[in-house]
């Protein structure tokens, strides 16, 4: 069974149909990249899977459960990195990560995560004083500190410098050794280097889904992406 299953998902926000009859899945032990232009419905789909939004129709299932109002036992198995961070800005990264770790029965080693993401130098600074890239890494650490079986990472490398991006990719790949990792991204390079499985969304619909090679279909991912999302490169 897939760790993440989206079947006929529809989500209306007011008069706008943000997600329209979307179906795709993600399995454990793999990285699934969800690509699409702004407004394609990527974040809305992720939020339905995280339990932050309730589908209008269709189903979103994670580890066999409905994430909407799911109990703590389910939430502990799912790591979430939100697009807007979700970080309390008046506290320090170390204090926040120690706190999130205390919400879990057997969390990852916070000191190890801090070191791995090169946050040691800034871990005791107030989060509001961190750069955008440093905040991204704190949010990633907060998503992974519970050793999730499924991790939803919304644009995990946005704003990172090339060195930080490589390290985050390594950590995401490592996490996918024992978990299902779903990342949203605008980066073709990221999808090609990270993903085992690719979902392309456009205007709320899934326009391609499959292994990286299936979706590329012998051509560069970028070319396929533009062909699928706008009928050609703008």
């Amino acid at each position, binding site marked *: 069974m897939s760790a993440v299953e989206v079947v006929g998902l529809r989500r209306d926000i007011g008069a706008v149909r943000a997600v329209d009859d979307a179906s795709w899945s993600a399995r454990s032990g793999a990285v699934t990249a969800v690509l699409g232009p702004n407004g394609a419905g990527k974040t809305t789909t992720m939020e339905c899977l995280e339990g932050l939004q309730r589908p209008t129709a269709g189903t979103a299932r994670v580890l066999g459960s409905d994430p909407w109002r799911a109990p703590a036992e389910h*939430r502990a198995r799912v790591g*979430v990195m*939100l697009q807007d961070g*979700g*970080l309390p800005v*008046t506290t320090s990264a170390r204090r926040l990560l120690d706190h999130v770790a205390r*919400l*879990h*029965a057997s969390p990852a080693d916070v000191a190890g995560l801090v070191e791995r993401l090169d946050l040691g130098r800034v871990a005791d600074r107030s989060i509001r004083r961190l750069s955008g890239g440093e905040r991204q890494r704190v949010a990633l650490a907060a998503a992974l500190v519970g050793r999730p079986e499924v991790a939803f990472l919304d644009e995990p490398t946005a704003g990172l410098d090339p060195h930080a991006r490589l*390290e985050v990719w390594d950590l995401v790949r490592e996490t996918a050794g024992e978990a299902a990792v779903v990342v949203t991204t605008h980066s073709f390079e990221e999808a090609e280097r990270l993903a085992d499985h690719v979902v392309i969304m456009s205007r709320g619909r899934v326009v391609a889904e499959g292994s990286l090679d299936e979706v590329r279909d012998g051509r560069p991912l970028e070319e396929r992406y533009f062909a699928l999302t706008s009928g050609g490169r703008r």
Partner: protein
Amino acid sequence: MTARPSPARPTGPAAPASAGRRWLAQAAFETATILRHGEQLLVALVLPALALLALSLTDVPDLGPGRRIDLATAGVLALAVVSTAFTGQAIATGFDRRHGVLRFLGVSPLGREGLLVGKLGAVGAVITLQVVALGSMAAFLGWRPELVGVVPAVVTVVLGAAAFLALAMLLAGTVRAEGVLALANLVWVLLLGLGVLLPTDRLPDALTSLARLLPSGALGDGLRLSLVEGGWPLTQWLVLAAWTVGSGAAAARWFRWSD
């Protein structure tokens, strides 16, 4: 970044800490966040302490019959409750909502119920510290509360904190963060004169009835009746309970988790 060992991966499936541990952790985290935050400490302790000094060292405004330090202390304790349960919580929650903190913690093992329990615990802990600090200072200035009024005063503080926390959640969950900041501070100033520091019977007739129906009047008058006269402020408790139920229901209905 350099190649380093991956974070240790303990054995066993991912699972939440027990509910009690999660709630205690959140209450401790929120309490420490308040106590580390200079602006919150200013509103929670420094301004009430200055109000206590000012009221005890002057004879204006008129606080009515009774020992002035006793009346002033009861009002300042009411102010401390409003500062922490309403102003501090409304602003902190408004900005946590803006920054996505409520959404992140809401989908963590803590969950929405844990967020609320954590707030209740933190507000309770900080008010306890305020009562000890301001009460000690007042005792040094000559405060002698009616001992038979201590139990009803504690009930009044609990009901007042519940009413103002419910109002804070309603404001923080329905208005943008900048609006919450402005409104929470404005309300704090207005309520000083609507029953918190100034007894409702010292107000102009037209305002007295209104102030008695406000949570500020009920909390301030309730604490004065308990601590100065040793009475049981049943009417004020009813007013505070009504505000708690009304604001709590409205917050449950209209609270939005994202800004």
